[in-house]
């Protein structure tokens, strides 16, 4: 009985506490840099697309909302199209984890409501951004040891020339 009265009093005192509400449209909440919001495709520091269409994101996606098609151009792989259906996406971030080239990234932006559902299907030109996103220095072809036009094997950062397996010398 006494504890009930005490509860009543303590609850009443909450009238004079500040409310915890963040009044959203007027007052934007702080979103951490690694917040899992709208998905983007980033570029490497040279301005080329990072995505190499390895399909790992599409495989990792638990709701199968990513669809893409590989194409090849001068030894490099590109996505011919890259489509994310955001009406399906659950923003789990598995695609970002799966991506070997840091191309696909989740950003702290969630304001992507639409009046028509098909507008939530984002194509490659909607997804591609001009910057590098969260990894400004990273360029996949500069560290992967692959040969692309203008850079042969072993010429990238932290790389040595490839070992010739036919010689006996080290």
């Amino acid at each position, binding site marked *: 009985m006494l504890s*009930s009265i005490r*509860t*009543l009093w*303590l*609850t*009443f005192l*909450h*009238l004079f*506490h*500040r*409310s*915890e*509400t963040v*009044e959203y449209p007027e007052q934007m909440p702080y979103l951490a840099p690694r917040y899992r919001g709208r998905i983007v495709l980033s570029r490497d520091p040279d301005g080329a697309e990072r995505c190499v269409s390895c399909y790992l994101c599409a495989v990792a996606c638990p709701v199968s909302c990513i669809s893409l098609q590989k194409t090849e151009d001068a030894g490099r792989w590109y996505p011919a199209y890259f489509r994310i259906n955001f009406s399906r996406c659950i923003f789990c971030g598995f695609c970002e984890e799966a991506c070997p080239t840091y191309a696909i990234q989740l950003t702290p932006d969630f304001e992507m409501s639409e009046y028509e559902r098909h507008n939530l299907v984002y194509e490659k030109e909607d997804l591609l951004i001009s910057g590098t996103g969260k990894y400004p220095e990273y360029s996949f072809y500069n560290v992967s040891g692959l040969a692309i036009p203008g850079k042969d094997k072993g010429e990238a950062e932290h790389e040595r020339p490839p070992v010739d397996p036919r010689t006996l010398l080290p």
Partner: protein
Amino acid sequence: MNLLLFGLLNIIGILLALVIGAALLTWIERRLLGFWQDRRGPNRVGPFGSLQVVADMIKILFKQDWIPPFADRYVFVLAPAVVMVAGLLGFAVIPVTPSIGIAGNWNIGVLFFLAMASLSVYSVVLAGWASNSKYSLLGGMRAAAQMVTYEVFMGLSLIGVVMLSGSFNLTDIVRAQRNIWFIIPQFIGFIVFLMAGIAETHRLPFDLPEGENELGAGFHTEYSGMKFGMFFIGEYIGILLTAAMITVLFFGGWEGPFLPPILWFMLKLSVFVIFFILLRAALPRPRYDQLMSYGWKVLLPLSLLNVVITGAVMLASGPAG
């Protein structure tokens, strides 16, 4: 002719004030609950969110008025009307001020209030029964048992007040409190009446008939649209009615210095309404057997004791009766 006009004005005024007040209470309750839970509550529509009521009304009026095919149609429709009618009729005997009030001077005011409070039980029971679904039936049965239990000493707790004032007439009861509010000599009666009043309006912490966690929504599980809205408004009218009765019976009704009588009445009324909402914000729901045993084993003996003590004191203090 003039008298008739005045009477009509009185009736329409009180009716409108009640329905509008009950509707506004939905907003006030949500706002206050928000504050007590460190939130804001509805604050978007209109000044401070007060037009939320209008928005809710528009929404609920345009909902499909659906009657489940397995329900007993006529009783199903009748049930929500009963709670409204009983609540509004109960208000007829409340003397807001000496001049405002429909039948405040009636010589069986207290009895009429008790009768109307009992009548509103039918609404809940009929709703639970007519819905023909197990949650509703369980809710209705709980409501019936709870009401019957708390009805008993709701009446008994008022006997002390009636003994002291020597009248069933609510206006006389208010006049008898000119010197001292009945809460002081009738403190036990007040506590018991408060508990019974909360149980009668089935508000938290005594809202077992509609316990969301175990019964869906209890007796109004199958209701939607405006019929649900009627239950909702009926509940708020019940709160207003109980708060008004507490004001009249224990806190001197309109009596008070400086301010005009109507303001005093409103002030006291709103304190109790806010208290009801605070109860909802603060207290958990007891178990059903706890509720019943609390009623029969604590509150009933307490109210009987109150009657005995009041009688003894009156007998000892002088040739009153």
